[in-house]
């Protein structure tokens, strides 16, 4: 590309009257240009942001819906996840036993197995109830919603935590 055929072909006149121009090489040293090119590439590679943020959609329930219009969940298919401080996750299946015997603690790594297990067991009745307490952070909340996506849980709800559950979390965390 950067080279051109400058050698005279046979068609040129070659006589005593034709002045021979000094043949200059048209080869250009492209090394500095390449250097510059790569320098700029490096600049753009580092400044470019390839990962565009994605948005998670969440629909909130209307608090004004009357109690009798709300769907009651089947206790056999209910799994309640409680979020506490320091990325702690607690859960219980069905209804919380008065002696809190079915209240178990977990973490974000193990909770996925638990959800999957419950999903297989409850099948279509599965409803996950998410209850973050006041000490949980925003990341925990997003993570648990993400867990719903990952495990394809179709029905889940975010509910305010009750005092009993909050006390249980604090008691367990305090130990």
């Amino acid at each position, binding site marked *: 590309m950067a080279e051109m055929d400058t050698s005279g072909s046979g068609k040129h006149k070659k006589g005593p009257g034709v002045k021979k121009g000094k043949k200059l090489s048209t080869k250009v040293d*492209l090394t500095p240009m390449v250097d510059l090119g*790569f320098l700029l590439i490096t600049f753009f590679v580092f400044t470019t942001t390839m990962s565009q*943020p994605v948005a998670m959609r969440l629909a909130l329930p209307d608090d004004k819906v009357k109690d009798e219009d709300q769907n009651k969940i089947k206790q056999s298919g209910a799994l309640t996840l409680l979020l506490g401080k320091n990325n702690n996750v607690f859960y219980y299946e069905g209804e919380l036993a008065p002696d809190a015997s079915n209240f178990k603690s977990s973490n974000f790594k193990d909770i996925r197995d638990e959800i999957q297990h419950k999903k297989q067991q409850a099948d279509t009745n599965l409803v996950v109830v998410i209850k973050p307490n006041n000490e949980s952070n925003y*990341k925990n909340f997003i993570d648990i919603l993400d867990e719903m996506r*990952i495990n*394809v849980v179709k029905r889940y709800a975010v509910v305010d935590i009750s005092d009993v559950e909050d006390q249980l979390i604090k008691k367990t965390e305090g130990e």
Partner: protein
Amino acid sequence: MSRPKIARKSTSVDMTAMCDVAFLLLSFFILTTKPKPSEAVPISTPKSVENKFAPDKNLVMISLNKDNHVYLSVGDNSGDRDKKQAMLEDVNKANNLGLSSSEIATLTKQPFIGTPLAQLKQQAHLPVEQISSKLPGIPCTDTTNNQMTEWIRAAVAAYQGTKMDLILKGDNVATYPVFKNILTAFKKNEQFKFQMVTNQSNVPAGTDLYKLNMSGKAAQM
């Protein structure tokens, strides 16, 4: 003993091909790069497997930073800025803040609103460099003085008849109660749908969503 002579080859390489590649890549990166939107508030968002991109216009963004400060901003185009101006005029009138039209114009130009209603007048006189996460944010931490409700009301009124995307951008370490108060503000204004900005991450292998994606069906949630 005489070694056979090796013909000396020129060490200069033809740079043309390399030059072509370099500039091809260069043009690619120049064209794909987007100037990073100016972020006055640094926020590190959590990750999710979500694959829908966040919208970039007709949006009202609520930022929640690591110190639980709440800021309000709109999309970065003239349409959204007009809406912001309308919001500010609305809030000014409804709360008797006594902002002049030039103060409203300044506030509109500023990247976000980050002060309680009573201090909006002061924010209008701050230089742009001071519009940062040092500002106290819109009060949203306690339920009695949730000024976010007022801002969302103004936003809904300003975007009346057009599409409005409520976007919440929260930091990893922001606490849940503040987030919940923002949700309360949404609910009070009957805004039940919103989006949360996250970074994309891959779906873990072996999970149900992974299998669903592999089987070619789009995950319908």
